[in-house]
């Protein structure tokens, strides 16, 4: 029964992709994003000697207030949706969609587990290449992989810029301007800092990068490309527009590009920001932390200790999620520790410090790769 379903999915890739997308987005990303709104508040509260939200409950079920995100969602839904008189109504409505859609779509390229070997799920698989039919645990496997991600991530800037411009408010306009300049500047650095990784692993395709990193921890991106890791992580935090790079929002100064939004429209911007952090965690996991790889675990199990294929795959998916959770937590920690940059300092950091470093990284990496391949 299970095998026939899996076989059907392996044959009908479109159905499988749809199913995986639904599972990934609705089953992982959205709940995690909602939970991070709660986690952020609890995390910051812990760092600041406060209690944080711990009251929301359904009857006796309290769970440290974890249900706050439900209360938040209900609040957002039922708040009045204020549309100021002079806004450009179409663009005003379009902006939140433009902010959230690209991030959700980009999840398609992220591999969240190894290929599932259909027909051998209960047996030990020593060589995955021998499988007759496989289901890749990745929504879309494209050769352009990471380029697709860069292309879509650039689209997200429209959301913030349009929101700032369409709101008919000078403060939000300034916020939108800041957002566009910041995101465009840091995209350059993001792209260039990953070039070294592509050179090392010889592919743009995320799953191939993960596979190339293998189960030896020293071969992971964070060790082969440490500088790129720092550069990319920094630039990508800037891309998510969160502290210390939250200038487009800049609470005490500008209030942000979404100052005129209320209700669920604001909620979408809010959620988009959290999804971006998860996505950033996913990309860093894929490229630098070995994706779904577990140190010492290959497709047949830990060395001579064999495990059924399904167990291996499940373990790897769980570890992949744990890595993402860790990186999300790390971002929260950074967010609540550092103060905010000033726009000119931000630009200086991006263009005069991160960009030259990432170019240097490419040159050094290319030279080393060339040298190791014997000049061929």
């Amino acid at each position: 029964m299970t095998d026939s379903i899996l076989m059907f999915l392996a044959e009908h890739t479109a159905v499988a992709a749809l199913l995986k997308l639904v599972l990934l987005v609705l089953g992982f990303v959205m709940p995690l994003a909602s939970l991070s709104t709660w986690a952020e508040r609890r995390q910051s509260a812990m760092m600041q000697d406060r209690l944080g939200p711990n009251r929301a409950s359904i009857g006796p079920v309290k769970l440290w207030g974890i249900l706050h995100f439900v209360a938040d969602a209900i609040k957002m839904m039922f708040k009045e949706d204020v549309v100021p008189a002079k806004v450009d109504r179409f663009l005003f409505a379009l902006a939140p969609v433009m902010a959230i859609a690209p991030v959700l779509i980009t999840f398609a390229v992220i591999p969240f587990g190894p290929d599932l070997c259909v027909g051998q799920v209960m047996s030990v698989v020593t060589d995955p290449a021998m499988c007759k039919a496989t289901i890749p645990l990745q929504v879309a496997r494209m050769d352009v992989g990471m380029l697709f991600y860069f292309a879509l991530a650039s689209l997200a800037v429209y959301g913030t810029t349009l929101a700032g411009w369409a709101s008919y408010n000078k403060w939000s306009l300034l916020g939108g301007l800041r957002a566009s300049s910041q995101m465009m500047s840091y995209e350059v650095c993001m792209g260039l800092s990953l070039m070294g990784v592509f050179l090392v692993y010889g592919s743009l395709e995320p799953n191939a990068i993960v596979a190339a990193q293998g189960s030896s921890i020293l071969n992971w991106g964070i060790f082969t490309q440490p500088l790129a890791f720092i550069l990319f992580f920094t630039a990508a935090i800037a891309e998510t527009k969160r502290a210390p790079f939250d200038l487009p929002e800049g609470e005490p100064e500008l209030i942000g590009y979404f100052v005129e939004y209320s209700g669920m429209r604001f909620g979408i911007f809010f959620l988009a920001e959290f999804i971006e952090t998860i996505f950033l965690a996913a990309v860093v996991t894929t490229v630098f932390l070995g994706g779904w790889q577990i140190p010492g675990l290959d497709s047949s199990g830990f060395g001579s200790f064999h495990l059924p294929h399904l167990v291996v795959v499940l373990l790897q998916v769980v570890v992949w999620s744990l890595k993402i959770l860790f990186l999300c937590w790390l971002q929260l920690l950074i967010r609540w520790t550092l103060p905010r940059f000033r726009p000119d300092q931000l630009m200086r950091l991006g263009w005069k410090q991160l960009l030259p470093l990432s170019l240097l990284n490419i040159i050094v990496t290319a030279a080393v790769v060339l040298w190791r391949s014997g000049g061929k």
Partner: protein
Amino acid sequence: MSTTTQSKTGPRKLAFGMPTPDEIAAGGIPGLSARPKLPVDLMDKLNASELEEVEDIELPTEPMQINMGPSHPATHGTVRIVLTIDGETVRDSDVQVGYLHRCFEKEAEYATYTQVFPYTDRLNYVSPLLNNVGFALAVEKLLGIGAAIPERAQYIRVIVGEISRITDHLTCLGASAMEVGGFTPFLWMIKIREWLWELLEELTGARLTHSYVRVGGVSQDLTEDFIARLRATLNRSLEPLAECEKLLVKNRIFRDRMDGVGTMSAEDAIAMGWTGPCLRSTGVPYDVRKDHPYLVYDRFEFDVPVGSVGDNYDRFAVRLEEIRQSMRILEQAMQQIPPGPVLLDEPRICMPPKNAVYNTIESMIGHFKLIVDGIKVPPGEVYSYTEGGNGELGFYIVSDGSGRPYRCHVRSPSFIITQSMSKLILGAGIADIIPTFGMINMIGGECDR
């Protein structure tokens, strides 16, 4: 480490690289005075001269007018700044105060001298006791009873005043950290402030609007274990304070935001009438407590920290050091405080004890007369000034011999410092307005009165 052992002998080691009193005595705060004047950013200069050579591109631009406030998250009280900006650069600004005007001066003319105290609580509402003390000193000066105030009352006034100065500076420093995005140090500082306010609440019965000081003394004696608890609280607060300092003073982003922003020269600062931490940040060591000692301040050993550049960071560092100096004063005051009465024994000025009011006819009449007529202050005028949280806090009182002030004017330091705001932010970015405004610490209640 602890303040209990810091009083007179031996080098006192303060946490995390802060200079010891000896070092300060040797030559200012090392971190402050050693810093050179900041050069103009060479790259910016280069770009500007290059740009002039480029042919004008035909893009019509015009400066944008934008309102910051009166309801804006960064304006502590309520203040409105009308900005003319070019991109994010401030080309012109008009700072409009007065949104929190509550007629303090007019109200004071209709209240007896004792009834003015609750109004003074609401001037600088992060250090109400300093205002209390300032007003009481002014009335006592006019009454000519300054020297007769019981010594214990004078010490208590110093103690509560210095606690208030610490809470004032903590609020200012914390808020400025929050305004540049560092939310965590803000809450840590507020945590310390809360400890101190709990103490004051225990002493005065109110958390914020204490109304504790009276003409002729203070309303009640210290609670039994107040000294011990204050000492414990000060010791306890050293650690979070040092943590805040570590998060901010040594943070590159924070220093970049504060260094060289909102610079003021000592000459300009004096010309604009600056006082307090803001003036001291420019390098002028003027402190009313030191230069014109009042109460028993001449009996304490403390230093007046000064800055060198007069920028936001100097204002930050001066305030931070003043917190430690206040702790020094507190420690000495706690050791020296003598026993005795806390209110002058003069029935025409001070309320008799409640017990006597209920049991003797003289006290009851005295109580009645003080409540209905107020304290009869001889005709004349007086200007009395003290060191408030933000600078020289002066009360100018004219009396016509009745129980109510004929005129009562407040020289509020915030109001006078806020007039330089336009000058400080000219040419800065929008993002610089916020820390600059935070560091001059305009308190709406005090500024608008």
